[in-house]
């Protein structure tokens, strides 16, 4: 009896010991597996994470282009460009303004061989970052929450997410302009380029004449390594001595007498100007008397008439005021295509008086079947429509001499206005033509810069003719009612038939 009790105890002890060993093995193996999985993932993420991340987007919006990579490769191996986002790194970027920015910046890091770093430092939790990046507080970084700062050798540039997109400013959707182009790479690469290469010349853009907005031409010139500053209209208007190019884009009122005197002086000393006006209901009554006196010195006249294109082959959408214009032969190298886009154009004429030393040439021309009309404040033609022929939409004039005055005058705002460039993007041929004009004015002072293109935003639109309201209703009925109800009915049938089995 005692022996059998001892055997049972021994067996139980042996069994408990085996169970303990198995328990130990079981827990140990789970802990070991968790450790291995964590280690493998951390190592894989750290070593191969970026290398094994691929951009499958249709427009390559998450990858830097070869142009940017080529530029980065030209930088010295020890160059350090620091990109700092003045906010916490967003955990989810989809449907935010950072959705095209954060992944692209990661790709910059991946392709820079250590030359570019990206950090996210929130000034609220790390206030010292402000003084670290901008010791002189010249950029007021404290107010730039949500922006990126690019720093190179103590110089900085601030990039706002808004700078990274092109907007169609003619359409508001849910209180916002509709995004039509992704300029993230354009903005960041050009900002890095300017920081590392420096500016080659300086342009001043005149503001304060009810102009149509100069944001995009500022971006474009900045991307050409031209430093751009605004020159406000004032009683003490003076053109700074460091002004290499003066831009007067889309004024709706005439220049002041003081400005006329300053600009005349500027031109007579070999100044370079680009002027653009148009003929819209905002300025039908404006004859730009002083501005005309200025352009007359280069043998160019801005006419108080609207160009009406009568050739259907030149009209866009059947509109006489929205047409294509031809690039004059002399300037064919300015654009890859000869037909550009013009709307509400004012006629620009050549005059032979008073400057015999200036040569004015047509730049952009209508068809031979256009007319110039004068309209009233309501847009009704009141004179001039019976004279047809070819008109100039833009002209170029240059004085003779070693460093001559040069002037471009556009009768349309389609080359300089924010609403046009925003709607058509920075790859548009008109923008390309504008760049060529600026290069001509800056001549040897500016480098060719980089040719980073606007990327298209992924488009998932359906065919508007097919995706009607009734089609949407059909989708609602089929996918949200018919299919689920049929399946629930099947579930009920199965349950009823099998509940007693």
């Amino acid at each position: 009896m005692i022996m059998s009790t001892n055997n049972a105890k021994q067996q139980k002890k042996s069994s408990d010991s085996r169970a303990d060993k198995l328990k130990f093995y079981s827990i140990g193996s789970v802990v070991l597996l968790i450790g291995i999985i964590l280690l493998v993932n951390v190592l894989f993420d750290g070593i191969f994470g970026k290398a094994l991340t691929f951009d499958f987007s249709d427009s390559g919006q998450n990858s830097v282009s070869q142009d940017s990579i080529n530029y980065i490769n030209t930088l010295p191996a020890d160059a350090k460009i620091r990109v700092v986002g003045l906010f916490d790194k967003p955990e989810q970027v989809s449907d935010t303004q950072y959705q095209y920015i954060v992944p692209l910046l990661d790709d910059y890091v991946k392709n820079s061989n250590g030359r570019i770093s990206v950090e996210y430092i929130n000034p609220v939790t790390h206030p010292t970052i402000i003084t670290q990046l901008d010791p002189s507080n010249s950029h007021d970084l404290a107010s730039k929450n949500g922006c990126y700062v690019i720093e190179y050798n103590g110089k900085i540039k601030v990039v706002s997410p808004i700078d990274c997109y092109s907007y169609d400013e003619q359409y508001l959707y849910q209180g916002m302009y509709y995004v039509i182009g992704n300029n993230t790479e354009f903005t960041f690469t050009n900002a890095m380029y300017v920081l590392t290469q420096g500016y080659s010349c300086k342009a001043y853009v005149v503001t304060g004449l009810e102009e149509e907005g100069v944001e995009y031409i500022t971006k474009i010139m900045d991307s050409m390594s031209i430093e751009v500053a605004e020159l406000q209209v004032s009683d003490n208007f003076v053109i700074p001595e460091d002004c290499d190019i003066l831009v007067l884009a889309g004024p709706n009122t005439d220049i002041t007498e003081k400005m006329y005197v300053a600009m005349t002086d500027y031109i007579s000393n070999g100044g370079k100007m680009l002027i653009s006006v148009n003929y819209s209901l905002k300025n039908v009554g404006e004859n730009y008397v002083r501005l005309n006196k200025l352009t007359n010195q280069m043998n160019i006249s801005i006419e108080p008439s609207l160009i009406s294109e009568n050739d259907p082959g030149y009209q866009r959408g059947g509109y006489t005021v929205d047409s294509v214009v031809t690039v004059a032969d002399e300037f064919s190298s300015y654009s890859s295509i000869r037909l550009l886009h013009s709307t509400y154009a004012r006629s620009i004429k050549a005059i032979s008086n008073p400057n015999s030393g200036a040569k004015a040439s047509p730049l952009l021309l209508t068809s031979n079947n256009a007319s110039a009309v004068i309209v009233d404040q309501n847009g009704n033609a009141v004179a001039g429509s019976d004279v047809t022929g070819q008109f100039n939409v833009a002209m170029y004039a240059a004085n003779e001499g070693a460093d001559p005055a040069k002037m471009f005058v556009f009768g349309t705002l389609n080359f300089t206005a924010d609403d046009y460039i925003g709607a058509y993007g920075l790859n548009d041929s008109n923008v390309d033509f504008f760049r060529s004009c600026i290069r001509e004015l800056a001549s040897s002072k500016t480098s060719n810069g980089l040719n980073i293109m606007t990327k298209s935003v992924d488009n998932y639109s359906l065919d508007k003719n097919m995706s009607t309201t009734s089609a949407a209703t059909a989708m609602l009925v089929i996918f949200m009612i018919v299919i689920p109800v049929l399946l629930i009915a099947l579930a009920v049938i199965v349950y009823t038939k099998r509940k007693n089995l």
Partner: protein
Amino acid sequence: MYAIFKREFLSYFRSPVGYVAIAIFSFLSGFIFYAQFSDGAVNIGSEVIALRSFFVVIVPIITMGLLSEDKKRGTDILYYTTPVSLFNVVVGKVLAAFTLYVVMFLNVIIHIFVTIGFGGTFGIGSFGTIVVFFFMAFMFISIGLFASAITDSQIISAIVSFIIILFTQLISQFAGYIGTAVNSIASSLGIKEGLASSMGIAIKNAVAWLDPFAKTQDFRLGIFSVSALVFLVSVGVLFLYLTFRVLEKKRWSQS
């Protein structure tokens, strides 16, 4: 393994569970598709990524009875007495639930054809979201199977898997709270503000690194990350192993 897979997969359609799960998935995917369609633009990638949010509802339904039902009926004794390895049992059941997910996904395939038929696009970026969707399905089904293995009650199993999956969806938020808490505790212990803040951020980042939703969020933008897929597979394998250990425990604890 095939016999277990076949039995489990067909059992979904011999009870209302399979039909109800597919009906819920159809309704939810149909809602997302309709919302996009009525706006005139359909991004299948966005639809698929949005559907990840409903794992928390559907996975508990289809996994709650996988092992707990056998335990309740006592038929789980067959795992240990028949010449089928526990590994095959676990894999067969996961495959059955996974195949049900594939059947559910036919809804999205129909949406893709409708989108293309209505002049929309379906690019390789959207294909990437489908790949990651199935990897996530594998991971969450493994979690659901584990929840089913630890109890003999289908309700408790569903609740456990619901809580675990819900937790994975909220990891990023929890990470923020944990980071703030660590920062506060470190500050109250007299650690310098900068160091305390760095500790908080480090802990927050470490916890947030575990978030499968954040890791796969950018797939809808066309970004295809292999390391995210490796993470999902790893976690799935871990829970399969945990399930295996739970079943194995019964063998040695009974001895």
